[in-house]
């Protein structure tokens, strides 16, 4: 039981606990805050795996921009609690049954294909360079350059679409009509 295993089990437990808290808290602001904790634990898991650049990007983009957007919208809308509740009580029985079944299938598959149970390789061949910014960019910008460009175009399209959608069109008000509405 070395240090890496201990850290891994703690992180795994934290991920699952915070995931449950995200999914089952009634108020969206609490879900968003526990989601931040979940993303930070995910980032720690990436560091444990050795993917340092991805860990920092996880915090920068996911925890630092996407969840900020959620927090903004929740703060702006500022709804009262009656509108925000869950549909029903948390269906613990069905969750346990479904995940138990799929988990058993999962474990059977793993026993049948034992190479999945091997320990993760120790990065001997490219020791110290897997997951770094240099080796990632060599793969991403050379081999997957089309994906990179398409991602850029996708982001540009998203910016345009959101600008169009969120643009508030003020309705033209004629004096007579509004007075009528105020009186009646």
């Amino acid at each position: 039981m070395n240090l890496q295993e201990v850290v891994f089990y703690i992180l795994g437990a934290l991920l699952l606990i915070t995931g449950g808290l995200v999914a089952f808290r009634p108020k969206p602001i609490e879900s968003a805050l526990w989601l931040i904790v979940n993303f930070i634990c995910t980032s720690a898991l990436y560091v444990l795996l050795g993917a340092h650049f991805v860990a920092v990007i996880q915090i920068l983009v996911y925890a630092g921009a996407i969840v900020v957007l959620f927090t903004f919208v929740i703060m702006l809308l500022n709804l009262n609690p009656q509108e925000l509740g869950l549909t029903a009580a948390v269906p613990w029985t069905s969750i346990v049954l479904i995940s138990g079944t799929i988990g058993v299938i999962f474990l059977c598959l793993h026993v049948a294909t034992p190479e999945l149970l091997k320990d993760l390789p120790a990065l001997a061949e490219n020791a110290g360079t897997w997951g770094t910014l240099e080796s990632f960019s060599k793969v991403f910008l050379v081999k997957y350059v089309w994906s990179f460009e398409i991602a850029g175009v996708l982001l540009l399209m998203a910016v345009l679409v959101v600008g169009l959608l969120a643009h508030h069109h003020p309705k033209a008000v004629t004096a007579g009509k509004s007075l009528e509405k105020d009186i009646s």
Partner: protein
Amino acid sequence: MSFSIAHILFICFGLFVLGASGFLIRKNAISMLICLELMLNAVNISLVAFGRMHGNESGHALYFLVITVAACETAIALAIILNLFRLRRSIRLDDATVLKG
């Protein structure tokens, strides 16, 4: 490392199930989006872990694409929700069943 890919996949699987069940029981659009992010996060963890298993960085490239798609979809969905709120004063998706307006 003394843990295997199966351990990490178990975590991903757990997160995905939690996200999916949270998504199914919510009636509030923003909370559904948050559970969707949880599911995407689970998939991201599995991508990076598989990349580590094979020793190349292709998992990271797909991770970037997933993050890009998640960011775009979150932004657009939140813009739609804000418009919905402007029209109907409510973000419960049960109230958004009529196409009129």
